[in-house]
């Protein structure tokens, strides 16, 4: 029977194939019906408002406690809020931390706490006990000095782990400059500030902020309203009312003209670009829906103009988006951002500004607006799948002072937005002429072009900040070459610095014995050189020689890891050059050696000299000493740079010799310290056989 049925179906469907025209996009069916249920609510005497959504589809429950406070300044105690949040949930005044954690885990439940937030979820068979534990830890917290110190250390370490994060640096500087460092939204944690916070500060923050005055508890899941009302009242009735918090901060201002604020991040392989400005926007504003549409068209997702331009068209980035936030507590921001590759940082800035300017100057198309509306309508419909959506709607109506029918009218409000509305709000909220452009990136690679960025015929000024948003001087990567300096003068300064021609001429041999380590393994290094084209370099690990290079006049051998090879004549010539006690002596009159520029080596200015196409040497402009050598190698299509850093110059006989040498290639780094250097002794011809 089944078979017959199937073949019938097949015949029917084969017939149907012809009827489907896949060359045109299928039309949508009639709009589905939307049912918005209303949650049940009640309020406790202390002010806590409770929103309950019963949903019995799955045997689980979730509780979310949010505090609708204005932003709170931490001033010189930034970190007190984070630590107070981290200390919550460590048991209560009557349950030890270990017992608390054990019981939460035992039930398979989750609890989480923040400075102004608490939540818990789990199986509904444990719903009462989960609520009890949540309330107890939130209202009767267990702040101890021991836990405080631990959380303080963790916070500091956490800040350290982010120290090199390009995105984090851009975020910190962005908020600090946008709102000002003294505004609660511009404050940020630093290891130094967190060190100053005490247990009393954390407690004070909790006492001030964790109050029921403007608190909301949202309950969603497999519960019964009558029971939950009883349980919530029982568990939260002792939560004491606090003093209402003030929202009295100096309002930050937008820039009078667009500028770039640059943060140098030498490790960056991408630049973080944020184009932003301050806005005044509340959910209850008439501009709210037009702003949603304008932002959606500009950068709301994979079909936004920013994404299509910067990613799909130009391939600058993995994603480019814009965002605008709203608040009843003062200014928020509009921002457009992307992580772009170093080379296109300047072009990305222009692309961002052009897109922002375009939506201000040109009316959007009917189609753009229609698509943006469809996206919001779809998102609204899809969100109804989650029972928490109904609770969120109710919470917003309460906290954002919205009319009761705000969500009933949501779709019609979106549909009512016009093209003129979009342009009007784009002009009002997206400021291409007063934008703050935050860029965190690798200055040595991106700054040259960034300083040339023009928009509407004007060059955009660039200001420089450190990672903590302090203004700094423009980072210097190159210094102007003083007149009269040539490769030869650099070499002769170097020779003078290490003791002079005469002293060097008196050196017939040198022996250098050193110790080092590679990835924890101790190594011994021996170098011997004479003026008779003799050179020996030996590396041994625990008494075994693992690599050895020998040059003796015109013969040479190189062995490593048990393999021996005979170098070619060219290699021998190279080896001879390097084996000279001071190779620079022979380079004085070599016209192919060029002085390139001045660059920093570990903060010190140095002359960069190209010895060959692939090898560069760096000599300090002040001391004349050689600081570094760099050799570029190609291996399997990849370019590697091998560097040798010379440090700790000290006398050996009549000349100065670097007692420290560190060599690195890729991730490998070997450091050697010479323990013994002998001049004109300890060498015999037999050493080079």
């Amino acid at each position, binding site marked *: 029977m089944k078979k017959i049925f199937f073949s019938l179906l097949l015949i029917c469907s084969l017939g*149907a*194939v012809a009827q*489907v025209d*896949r060359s*045109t*996009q*299928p039309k*949508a*069916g*009639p*709009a*589905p*019906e939307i049912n918005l249920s209303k949650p049940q609510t009640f309020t406790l005497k202390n002010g806590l408002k409770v929103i309950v959504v019963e949903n019995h*589809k*799955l*045997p*689980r429950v979730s509780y979310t406690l949010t505090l609708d406070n204005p932003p709170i300044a931490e001033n010189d105690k930034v970190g007190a809020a984070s630590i107070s949040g981290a200390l919550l949930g460590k048991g209560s005044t009557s349950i030890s931390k*270990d*017992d608390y*954690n054990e*019981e*939460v*885990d*035992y*039930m*398979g439940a989750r609890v989480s706490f923040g400075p102004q937030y608490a939540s818990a979820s*789990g*199986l*509904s068979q*444990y719903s009462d006990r989960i609520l009890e534990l949540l309330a107890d830890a939130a209202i009767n917290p267990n702040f101890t000095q021991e836990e405080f110190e631990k959380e303080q*250390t963790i916070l500091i*370490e956490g800040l*350290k782990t982010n120290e*090199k*994060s390009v995105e984090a640096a851009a975020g910190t500087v962005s908020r600090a400059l946008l709102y000002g460092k003294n505004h609660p939204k511009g404050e940020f944690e630093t290891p130094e500030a967190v060190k100053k916070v005490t247990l009393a500060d954390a407690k004070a923050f909790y006492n001030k902020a964790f109050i029921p005055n403007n608190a909301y508890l949202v309950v969603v899941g497999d519960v019964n309203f009558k029971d939950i009302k009883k349980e919530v009242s029982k568990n939260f009735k002792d939560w004491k009312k606090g003093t209402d918090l003030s929202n009295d901060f100096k309002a930050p201002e937008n820039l009078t003209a667009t500028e770039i604020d640059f943060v140098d991040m030498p*490790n960056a392989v*991408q630049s973080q670009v944020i184009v932003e400005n301050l806005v005044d926007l509340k959910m209850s504003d008439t501009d709210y829906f037009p702003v949603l549409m304008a932002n959606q068209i500009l950068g709301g*997702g*994979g*079909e936004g103009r920013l994404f299509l331009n910067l990613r*799909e*068209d130009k*391939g*600058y980035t993995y994603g480019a988006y814009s965002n605008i936030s709203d608040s009843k507590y003062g200014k928020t921001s509009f921002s457009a951002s992307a*992580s772009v*590759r170093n080379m296109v940082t300047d072009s990305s800035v222009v692309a961002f500004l052009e897109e922002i300017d375009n939506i201000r100057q040109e009316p959007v198309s009917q189609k753009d607006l229609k*698509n943006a509306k*469809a*996206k919001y*309508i*779809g*998102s609204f*419909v*899809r969100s*109804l*799948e989650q029972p928490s959506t109904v609770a969120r709607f109710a919470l917003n109506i309460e906290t954002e002072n919205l009319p009761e029918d705000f969500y009933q009218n949501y779709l019609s409000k979106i549909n009512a937005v016009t093209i003129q509305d979009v342009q009007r709000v784009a002009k009002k909220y997206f400021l291409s002429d007063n934008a703050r452009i935050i860029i965190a990136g690798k200055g040595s690679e991106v700054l040259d072009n960034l300083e040339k960025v023009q928009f509407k015929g004007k060059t955009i000024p660039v200001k420089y900040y450190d990672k903590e948003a302090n203004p700094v001087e423009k980072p210097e990567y190159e210094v102007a070459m003083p007149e009269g300096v040539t490769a030869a003068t650099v070499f002769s300064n170097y020779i003078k610095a290490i003791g002079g021609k005469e002293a060097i001429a008196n050196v017939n041999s040198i022996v250098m014995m050193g110790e080092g380590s590679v990835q924890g393994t101790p190594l011994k290094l021996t170098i011997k050189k004479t003026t008779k084209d003799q050179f020996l370099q030996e590396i041994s690990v625990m008494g075994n020689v693992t690599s050895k290079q020998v040059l003796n006049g015109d013969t040479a051998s190189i062995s490593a890891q048990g393999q021996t090879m005979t170098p070619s004549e060219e290699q021998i010539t190279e080896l001879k050059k390097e084996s000279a006690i001071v190779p620079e002596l022979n380079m004085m009159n070599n016209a192919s050696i060029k002085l390139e520029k001045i660059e920093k080596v570990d903060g010190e200015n140095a002359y960069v000299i190209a010895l060959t196409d692939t090898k560069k040497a760096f000599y300090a402009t002040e001391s004349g000493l050689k600081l570094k050598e760099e050799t570029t190698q190609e291996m399997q*299509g990849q370019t590697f740079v091998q*560097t040798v*850093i010379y440090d700790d110059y000290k006398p050996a006989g009549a000349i100065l010799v670097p007692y420290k040498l560190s060599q690195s290639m890729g991730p490998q*780094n070997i450091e050697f310290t010479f323990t013994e250097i002998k001049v004109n002794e300890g060498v015999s011809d037999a050493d080079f056989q």
Partner: protein
Amino acid sequence: MKKTLFSIASILALSFTATAQEVEFEEYDLDNGLHVILHQDNTAPVVTTAVMYHVGGKDREDGRTGFAHFFEHLLFEGTENIEKGKWFEIVSSNGGTNNANTSQDRTYYYEVFPSNNLELGLWMESERMLHPIIKQEGVDTQNEVVKEERRLRYDNSPYGQFLFAISEQLFDEHPYKDPNVGYMEDLDAASLEEFQSYFDKYYKPSNAALVVAGAIDVAETKKMIQDYFGPIPSGPALERSYPKEAPITESKRSQFYDSNIQVPAILTAYRTPGYGSRDAYVLNMISSYLSDGKSSKLYKKMVDEEKKALQIGAINLEQEDYGMYIIFGLPLGETSLEILVDGMEEEINKLRNTLISESDYEKLQNKAETNFVNSNSSVEGIANTLARDYMLYDDTNLINTEIDIYRSITREEIKEVANKYLKPNQRVEVEYLPKKEEQ
């Protein structure tokens, strides 16, 4: 107070009656081999259309890594009937959302639409399967995008390369040794013809599963599926073979450098069995025992009490052919990586030599129960699980029965599995270290 708490908890634990609602589904094959799974849920007027292809990072030639992930980008470029660059616009302008992701084993594409756009979702997925446009222009654009993704997610992100660092040590032969995202030079070197033949090889109905879940009319949906997917040619049979790995019998240690970090990390890893093996479920329980929740053994000891670690975690990263069991830690303050390794081994040693306590065992069961309830909480998630269970576990109904496997795992089995896979000589250790600027 404490005593009463516990007795209440254990009474409750005995009454394990609550179970997640059974996920009902229907499955069948089209003539061209496409496997179809339907799940009806009319709670909200929303529908998910999803296709999982049995192709992932491990399906590649040497020197041509990252193809599967690259396709996940390329196949949004357009089809014969969907203009280049219009994919996202069509989805969002019809109130939908969409995304895709690639693992070493499979690639997953999906859309979620208001239910009146079911036909649109089916049309788009069938277009992608039947005749996507694979041209040099699209390859070039997406190559740049993938490179930026790699920089963003891995090269520029603190600890972003930790999985690469482990895989290359845990595998010598199997393609799992290479990053799923691939090496940039491999993608640069690949020709258009290679991409086209990769599509022909892997993107065909018999190597795919279609899931439609949500507010649907089953009969109508079946007809639409036949209309849009029925005519897609089935293509030749696919042969797969992946190299086997010799067991790890001696622990080895290596270093990996990341320029985005300040605090080092230690990563230890063991090679474990692939999807569907009962031992893999036991290993999931062991992870939960070691690091899920504040009372878990490693967290409580090393982060909370001894304050040696900033963070510690145990993950059983399941894959089709072999899993990776990873325990990682970030030291706090002056603690050496060695001390972290010792602390981890101490707990695993206990697992190998003693049975876990009854109460810890009940806790693991409660956790498994909670995970099970939560895993079926969205239609979008159910669609993904159905496709996965069919394709990688060969048992679509696992969505309803997986919990029975956890319920049947015993304390003795936990000890056994720890002895089988988590011995020190089976361990790979990677010191994940900050890279200095000049390196």
